[in-house]
């Protein structure tokens, strides 16, 4: 029987690796002024295009080298992480709250509520997301809050679709009828019986969505539609690095690696969390 697969105990290596990277990146971003070896905005043309520490010509204190204006790359990445995490948490959480709530209502109540919400989702998903984001930021104006709002507005459908499907299958369970027999109302049943059973999926999607938000923010910065160009963001560093790829490859490669590791970690972390919570109770 499925139930025999009781908790495997301990954390999986996947959870450790992904969680470890996210924790390091997050702490570095929060304590950026303390951690960063240099001022991320300080230009020094004497120090332009310094290579990373293991290559000839490297300077101590500039571990990952400098860009074409002599700014320290590691410091810029650390400060760029602040924007990345703010966007990840704020945008993903908003998308999650909106999408999950609508998905829960559509899936559990069905009928008209479901028909209206599902049609809106269908129409929404017909737009290519990145174009949609660029369009939205163009309308809302650049800036941190616009970026967050744009991502939330675009990606709530991801939550809505998944949670709707899960809520629908939950609604058919006998324990839902049993709660009616116990005298619970519809809202009470939704919150008490259905919600706890869709939460693992919500958590997994939330983590995945944080990774996606990081990417979308990077894309928007890359095309110069995110926040003001002074503050470093991973997307803007990548955009600059692209211009000097032949003279200083590290300015492009390190931010790319940082971005990929972070996005992968978010998705793996979510999956691992779900796997950890699921077999025990399902």
């Amino acid at each position: 029987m499925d139930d025999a697969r009781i908790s495997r105990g301990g954390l999986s290596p996947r959870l450790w690796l992904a969680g470890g990277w996210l924790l390091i990146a997050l702490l570095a971003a929060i304590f950026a002024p303390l951690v960063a070896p240099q001022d991320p905005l300080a230009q020094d043309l004497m120090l332009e295009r310094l290579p990373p520490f293991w290559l000839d010509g490297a300077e101590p204190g500039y571990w990952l080298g400098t860009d074409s204006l002599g700014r320290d790359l590691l410091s810029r990445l650390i400060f760029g992480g602040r924007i990345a995490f703010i966007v990840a948490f704020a945008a993903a959480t908003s998308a999650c709250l909106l999408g999950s709530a609508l998905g829960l209502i559509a899936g559990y109540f069905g009928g008209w509520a479901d028909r209206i919400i599902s049609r809106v989702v269908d129409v929404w998903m017909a737009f290519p997301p990145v174009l949609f984001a660029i369009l939205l930021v163009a309308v809302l104006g650049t800036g941190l809050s616009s970026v967050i709002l744009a991502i939330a507005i675009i990606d709530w459908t991801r939550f809505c679709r998944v949670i709707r499907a899960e809520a629908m299958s939950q609604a058919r369970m006998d324990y839902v009828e049993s709660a009616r027999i116990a005298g619970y109302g519809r809202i009470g049943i939704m919150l008490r019986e259905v919600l706890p059973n869709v939460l693992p999926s919500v958590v997994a999607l939330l983590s995945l969505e944080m990774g996606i938000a990081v990417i979308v923010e990077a894309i928007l910065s890359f095309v110069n539609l995110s926040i003001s160009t002074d503050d470093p963001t991973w997307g803007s560093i990548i955009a600059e690095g692209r211009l000097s790829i032949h003279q200083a490859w590290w300015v492009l490669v390190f931010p790319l690696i940082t971005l990929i590791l972070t996005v992968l970690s978010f998705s793996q972390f979510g999956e691992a969390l779900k796997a950890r919570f699921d077999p025990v109770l399902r």
Partner: protein
Amino acid sequence: MAEPLFSVRGLKVALPDMTRKPLIGRAPLAEILKGLDFDLPKGSVTGIVGESGSGKSTLGRALVRLLEPSAGAISFEGRDISHLSEAELRPLRRNLQMIFQDPMSSLNPRHTIFNIIAAPLRQNGLGDRLKERVAEALQRVGLPQTFASRYRHELSGGQRQRVGIARALALSPKFVLADEIVSGLDVSTQAQILTLLEKLAAEMGLTVAFISHDLSVIRRLCQRVIVMREGRIVEASATDALFDNPQETYTRDLLAAIPLPEIDADWLQQKAPA
């Protein structure tokens, strides 16, 4: 006997038939129950038997008003409950309880056994002395108190069904619907659950509607039997009368089709009804 607990007259239930749903628009209604009349006397255990498609489960769900009848009347203690709204039903729920067929799917995997049994108590104004009441309910069904902190996946099939019974009886209801409550269990567990229900029904003076496809089980547990087929009542009478002297061919066919655990070389030779 005094007035019946349930009095059902001309009961019809129609449900959307999803197999005939057109691509666009609503599914047409199919009549599942086609006019039923019967009473459930107070304190009696009535068996409702039938094969798949007979409408026995639909009937059960109409009695506890999980479904709304399309015609006819269901009187509970003299009051017609057939068209009460969910809010109007809420005060009555305390006396209209149900034990489900599949104890796996009827227990929420995310709640402890304590919370599962406590839910109907909390919701029906018995939230005081909750610990005591849950402990009492567990004891009544023969489960140790330590089970209160467990989850459904930590229990065996028979134990899960005991929790289902404990939940339904925690409120000391007047009526309990038992829908195929042993059909998923092994025979040894089945016997335990049935003797438990038999004992509790007698002790608490419950009125029980016991839905089953198994006439052998019904004979042991029930004082009265309703035989259903395709949404209609074929035969209804006292248990002994029905088994000793079935009036309808269909009832006789059903009895003859049961393979009893005893040697009978002729059984396979008798033709089964088409």
